[in-house]
């Protein structure tokens, strides 16, 4: 059974469906996917994107070797914010 997606936020919802928290991967690039408010700005580490009209977002982040903190941050133009922190470990 896949791990449940992480969800945060009250005024602005943020759900990260991928990657799962505490996951270990063997590639240095991982795609962050999820949903938030339509048109919201979503960033993780040094990457960012805008959610589409349905609130879906997806973008890739690079990983350093070892454990990485992926801080996913979402905000809308009204100033509402939501954030989640995941740990993704990269083993060469």
């Amino acid at each position, binding site marked *: 059974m896949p791990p449940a997606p992480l969800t945060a936020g009250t005024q602005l919802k943020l759900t990260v469906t991928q990657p799962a928290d505490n*996951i270990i991967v063997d590639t240095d690039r991982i795609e962050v996917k999820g949903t938030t408010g339509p048109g919201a700005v979503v960033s993780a580490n040094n990457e960012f994107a805008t959610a589409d009209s349905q609130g879906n977002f997806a973008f890739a982040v690079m990983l350093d070797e*070892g*454990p990485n903190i992926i801080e996913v941050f979402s905000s809308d133009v009204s100033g509402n914010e939501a954030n989640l922190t995941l740990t993704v470990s990269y083993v060469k």
Partner: protein
Amino acid sequence: MKLFRILAVILVASLLLGAALPALAQGPANTDSDGTNQLQPQPFQKGKPGVRPEAVKPQLLKPELAKFKVIKGVVKEVAAAKIKVDDYELFFAPDTAVKVPTLSKSAVFADIKVGMTVIVMVYEKDGKLYIRHINVVPGKPIITHNVGTVIEFAYDAATGGKITIEPKKGDNVTFEILAGKFKILPEGAEVKVGSLVTVISNRDPATVNRLIATGVVVHIPKPLPVRPEKVTGTITAIDQTAKTIKIGETVLSYNEKTLFALRGQLAVTTGQEAVAFCVKKEDGTLVALRVLVGIDLPEVMAELGAQLGNAEKVRTGQTS
């Protein structure tokens, strides 16, 4: 001979079954849609000090990754070559990598202090947990989003620059932009004074007040729906070459999209009563969208309302 064949078949079958069973016992490999090999989350179960935590058997494509586990916790004790993170006693090894975000230099074991929150990747050897990587978790979020109106922007890909915004609340904020490390979304959007933007910034952990913008999202306002203007009066002139129609003293242009509706007449001529709905172009000229000739709009609306009312009665079965 027949007995020999039966024995051979049994031997081959048992060999094949023996090879397949361990793979089946390990479970299906977990390959992500992008081909990434991923382990399911494997948090350690917290136990008493010195007790080896029970770990869930991972589903792996690469079994060699199974030796690594990840622990997140607070450093409780620091000794010569080991630390205690929550209830786990973890040992440093010659290849232990240490990362402390507030240090510009390469971090070492001595930089790990009691009270720090850390994420540790460990492996087990001879009944002990050895640290492969230990990263200190910053106390405050590193990334911030700042919504505001641009009051100053200067950027050159070769030299960098700065952006200052006026937030909806609070004082103006200025962000540094490092050369070559700045992205603007949507692609092709222009950042200019007056633009409503979200600035994505990193707080430099080494210098608390230094804000570095890594990108900007320009919020392009949706164009307001244009409310058509209404022109009512007598048609006083028509110019089919210039494609204009004059209602009273107002000249309107028309085009292939203009819809003319006439009641009881075959053509538009001067002297007819007309109602035109039009929009104003940037140069101030009016373009007709709809021209109703010989049509009393309130009367039509009343007729339409009556027809709709009757249709509703039919739909709901209220006809007498």
